């Protein structure tokens, strides 16, 4: 591996201690099995886990949002309003840029985000995975924006994954929509994301908002993004094998219903941020008039 001169020089190669733990003990494996079994049995497939969302958490960004799933996934998102776009490379891109703005998504995973082996930041595999997630995020968020109101500009969305415990893309979509709405960009609707997965058992049911362990053991995974007020799907991403088209259709309906149920939480957090900003501005105006 070539040496990265822009970072501190560490060991050339390192592995996580979990590998040796897996090698050593059958007792540890049995304990893990018990834990997984216990965690899986009482789970209601239709139940949604609690979700914490808060908008306007960063002061430097035009808009920002923080979304935390009960499984432990933590996503921080910052958005900036219309900025000047650099010159497009081709004539066709230039003609398109004249008519409407462009959305630029950036997805970053913190080195401490995953349990187990710590990924090397900036490595090729990590960058490719982040680019795929950024492309999926852009696909989900672009239909929500009124880009024709901002010609020759670009909107920036930067997502930072602080902790990965499953359902990462769904949390990023919800956080990105909240941050864009908080930044004051004109939108058609908010985007709500939800993830599902199914175990390798043929009779297994689809599970909403899977945790990281469930996602790792799953045979099929699906993420949907919905615009609830317009009742339109903005993105669908799935992977896996061994499912029939009826199973996929059932999963899609399942996920869309979950998005409808998640929407009031995001709406309430955005309304709270708007009220908070208005109250703060009124307090500042009152202080200014008093002085």
């Amino acid at each position, binding site marked *: 591996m070539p040496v990265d001169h822009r970072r501190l020089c560490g060991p050339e190669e390192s592995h996580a201690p979990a590998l040796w733990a897996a090698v050593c003990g059958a007792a540890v494996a049995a304990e893990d099995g018990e834990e997984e079994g216990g965690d899986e049995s009482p789970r209601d497939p239709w139940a949604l886990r609690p979700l914490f969302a808060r908008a306007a958490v960063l002061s430097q960004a*035009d808009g920002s949002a923080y979304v935390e799933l009960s499984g432990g996934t933590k996503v921080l998102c910052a958005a*900036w*309003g*219309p*900025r*000047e776009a650099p*010159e*497009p490379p081709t*004539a066709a891109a*230039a*003609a398109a*840029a*004249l008519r409407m703005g462009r959305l630029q998504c950036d997805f970053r995973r913190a080195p401490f985000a995953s349990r187990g082996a710590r990924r090397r930041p900036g490595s090729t595999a990590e960058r490719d995975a982040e680019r795929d997630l950024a492309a999926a995020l852009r696909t989900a968020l672009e239909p*929500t924006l*009124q880009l024709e109101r*901002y*010609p*020759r*500009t670009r909107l920036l969305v930067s997502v930072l994954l602080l902790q990965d415990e499953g359902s990462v893309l769904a949390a990023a979509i919800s956080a990105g929509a909240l941050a864009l*709405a*908080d*930044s*004051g*960009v*004109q*939108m*058609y*609707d*908010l985007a709500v994301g939800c993830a599902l997965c199914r175990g390798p058992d043929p009779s297994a049911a689809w599970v909403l908002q899977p945790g990281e362990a469930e996602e790792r053991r799953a045979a099929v995974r699906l993420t949907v993004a919905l*615009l*609830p*007020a*317009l009742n339109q799907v903005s993105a669908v991403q799935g992977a896996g094998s061994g499912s029939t088209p009826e199973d996929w259709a059932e999963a899609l309906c399942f996920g869309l219903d979950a998005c409808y149920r998640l929407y009031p939480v995001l*709406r309430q957090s*955005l*309304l709270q*941020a*708007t*009220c908070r*900003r*208005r*109250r703060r*501005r009124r307090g500042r105006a009152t202080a200014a008039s008093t002085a």
Partner: protein
Amino acid sequence: MEPSERFCVPGERLCSAEEATAGSGTYTRHGFIFSSLAGCVEKTSEESGLPVVSVVRDSDPQLLPDVGVVVTCKVCSINSRFAKVHILYIGSTPLKSIFRGTIRKEDIRATEKDKVEVYKSFRPGDIVLAKVISLGDSQSNYLLTTAENELGVVAARSDAGMQMVPISWCEMQCPRTHTKEFRKVARVQPEFLQT
């Protein structure tokens, strides 16, 4: 929070298109008016016809330079054909990010266009009032014009670093060294004159 205030989020349906007219911060779809911003709903009644429903935000609006507005710019570089500027203000509202513009040689003055010299109209670092005439084509920036008496240089510094005083429509003078420099000077607005 006042009970009369109503907050909304993007995508929220406000009312039917027959009850009100869509104002700023809203869009119309399938006969209904939806909000496109997270903010406060305002309904203003007009004398004739329907009230106007709009959504306003307390924070700075997302302003973009548009055709016909007067902007405040800072000159960055000049050559014999045009001057490149950074747009800093739209009217009296500062922009969050800098947009680049171009003042072409033929757009500097309304009269005697063939005798205009860019070096005698602008210098890098000057603050200029200009009007947007075009969003520009695919390879250029916003096109600005100063071909009016009220447009042109409003603040400039001399070689000695002092702020120069405008003495005519094409000259400015340094108050310390009394050297005169050529600029396309903007006519001073009456509200800024001290009496």
